[in-house]
């Protein structure tokens, strides 16, 4: 019997009991949708956790530290020699009191960075260029907007929080900072008397503005200076602001990061670095541990969801058993004419398969609709009833393709299993009893 004919035969049989078939499909739909929705919460939590971890870091980034002592130039050279390493960035915080332009000032971090390796690692500019000479600097994207005039004393008196914020905004710097000259203020301390030494200043020119951070809530107002400028700053106030600058044989760094070309290389490179007795931290390492926990969590949710599918499968089993019982005489006639048990089994398996397929299809569609609706409505509900803003990009339900595939496999598997026994029962119908109408 051809598949096309089986399909036609099954369809005509299903049409005869539309209500019963549709009720069974409805049960499968709800079971499948419940499974996907429940697991989607687990997937959403996992995704949020991953997004949270990756918020400030890059996947191909490995932070390297030494157990004893600071990372130095020798270490950097060693790291650069490791295969598959794209760049090794090194930063060191420079002493700073404040940075000003006219009446505007900002308290910020000033970092010396090795610009060529930063560029290799993927540091990008929104405007301008990388520093080419000592007194050239690059500033973060939000640097200009956080430059502000010093507010007068008690300016907020009698003002609401909103009005005070508005007033503060009026005091902030407006205009383009590129190619403007900033004053870099330094304060030192006398190493013997511990008293403040007179303030020293340096003039620096903004030649580049860093790219806007991908995450909207991240504000980058830092200043990147060249190694040469850093050395000058140290010569003026010392590393700790004491004015003394003990000569060091090797240059040290506060932060050393290794970048690989691809995320796949992170593990191999991390292993090599650890073998060289360095301590490493990479997002991949953190994610690996996190993934084990979340995989178990999601598996648990899928297991609970599968119970709903199992309950729906009882409906399919019942429907198919009824169908076999009702059609026993037809089965007997078919067998008498020459239908093989295999053909009969396949016809009934196809019927339960179609019920399952409809249930899975509609269930998946329903789950997607509910998932999108929940994600759309959740921030509104939080805002309306809790008077708070839901976190940016927050998802209550997330259905990746993998979850859809898992759910479809489980639902179809359970459906076919529940249709198996009635189909097998159909093959055992006694021809003589059926012909005598004794079944």
């Amino acid at each position, binding site marked *: *019997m051809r598949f096309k*004919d089986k399909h036609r035969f099954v369809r005509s049989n299903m049409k005869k009991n539309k209500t019963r078939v549709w009720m069974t499909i409805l049960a499968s739909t709800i079971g499948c949708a419940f499974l996907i929705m429940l697991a989607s919460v687990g997937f959403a939590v996992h995704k949020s956790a991953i997004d949270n971890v990756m918020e400030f870091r890059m996947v191909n980034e490995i932070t390297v530290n030494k157990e004893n002592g600071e990372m130095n130039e020798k270490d950097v050279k060693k790291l650069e020699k490791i295969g598959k390493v794209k760049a090794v960035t090194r930063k060191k915080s420079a002493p700073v009191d404040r940075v000003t332009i006219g009446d505007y000032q900002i308290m910020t971090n000033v970092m010396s960075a090795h610009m060529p390796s930063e560029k290799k690692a993927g540091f990008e500019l929104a405007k301008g260029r990388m520093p080419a000479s000592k007194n050239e600097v690059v500033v973060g994207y939000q640097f200009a907007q956080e430059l502000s005039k010093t507010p007068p004393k008690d300016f907020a008196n009698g003002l609401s929080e909103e009005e005070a914020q508005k007033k503060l905004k009026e005091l902030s710097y407006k205009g383009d900072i590129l190619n403007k000259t900033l004053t870099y203020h330094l304060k030192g301390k006398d190493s013997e008397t511990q008293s403040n030494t007179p303030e020293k200043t340096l003039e620096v020119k903004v030649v580049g503005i860093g790219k806007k951070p991908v995450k909207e809530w991240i504000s980058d107002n830092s200043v990147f200076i060249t190694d040469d400028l850093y050395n000058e700053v140290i010569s003026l106030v010392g590393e700790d602001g004491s004015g003394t600058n003990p000569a060091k044989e090797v240059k040290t760094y506060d932060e050393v990061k290794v970048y690989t070309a691809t995320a796949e290389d992170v593990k191999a490179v991390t292993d090599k670095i650890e073998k060289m007795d360095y301590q490493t931290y990479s997002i991949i390492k953190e994610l690996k541990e996190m993934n084990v926990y979340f995989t178990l969590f999601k598996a648990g949710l899928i297991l609970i969801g599968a119970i709903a599918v199992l309950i729906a499968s009882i409906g399919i089993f019942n429907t198919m058993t009824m169908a076999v019982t009702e059609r026993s005489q*037809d089965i007997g006639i078919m067998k*008498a*004419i*020459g239908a*093989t*048990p295999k053909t009969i089994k396949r016809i009934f398996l196809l019927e339960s398969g179609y019920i399952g397929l409809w249930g899975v299809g509609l269930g998946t569609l329903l789950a997607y609709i509910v998932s999108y609706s929940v994600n759309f409505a959740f921030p509104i509900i939080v805002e309306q009833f809790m008077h708070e803003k839901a976190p940016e990009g927050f998802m209550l339900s997330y259905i990746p393709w993998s979850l859809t595939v898992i759910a479809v496999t489980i639902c179809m598997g359970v459906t076919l299993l529940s249709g198996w026994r009635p189909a097998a029962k159909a093959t055992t119908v006694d021809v*003589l009893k059926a012909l005598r109408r004794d079944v």
Partner: protein
Amino acid sequence: MISVENLSYAFKIGKKGKENIVPVLHDINLHVAQGEIVAVVGRSGSGKSTLLNLISGFIQPEVGSIQLNGTQVSGLSESKWAEFRLNNLGFIFQSFQLIPSMTAYENVEFPLVLQGIGEKERKERTSEMLKRVGLDPYQAHYPGELSGGQQQRVSIARALILNPPLILADEPTGSLDSENEKELLTFIKELNRKFGITFLMITHDHEVASIAHRKVEIIDGYLQEGRKLHEVQR
């Protein structure tokens, strides 16, 4: 065409382990040549239907052997039996045994569907067969919408659709009036004469048996074989 040798059969009645064994057929030997019409007659409960069921493969013999159309069928698996029935046997039942949810056309077409024949060929052959049995205008009718005679003609059309060399008929006229009975018997004779189809008929009706070339009788499970038609009539 049919060769039954030393066939015995007993029903097991009752609970498993505590069954009563009721012997039905004893040492049956029956040989039917190709193109022959053989009538098996006997009283109710004599075992004639059991013999037909054994030859049809609906029940399996424990003792003896059955050979049909040159194939040793006793001992075939259920699947092999089904395939054999589809390709070699046609059935005419007393109560027609049509599938009520299928139209006359679909009932006749069904063996072709089981054999996996293409839709176009099926349509041609089914329409031709329905015309042959005079049911062309009733193609779309369900069995419940047809008279007994018409239903039996659908049943015959279904039995003939795959051109089987052997047709097994169990009380073929049992549910028909005398007019339809005559018509059916004429049709059977015609099929036998024109196409050489072999018929094995179970009947208790002497008029039905009268069209057979040979008549065998089963008395209390024993076959009285070999009497030619003229002997039986005398």
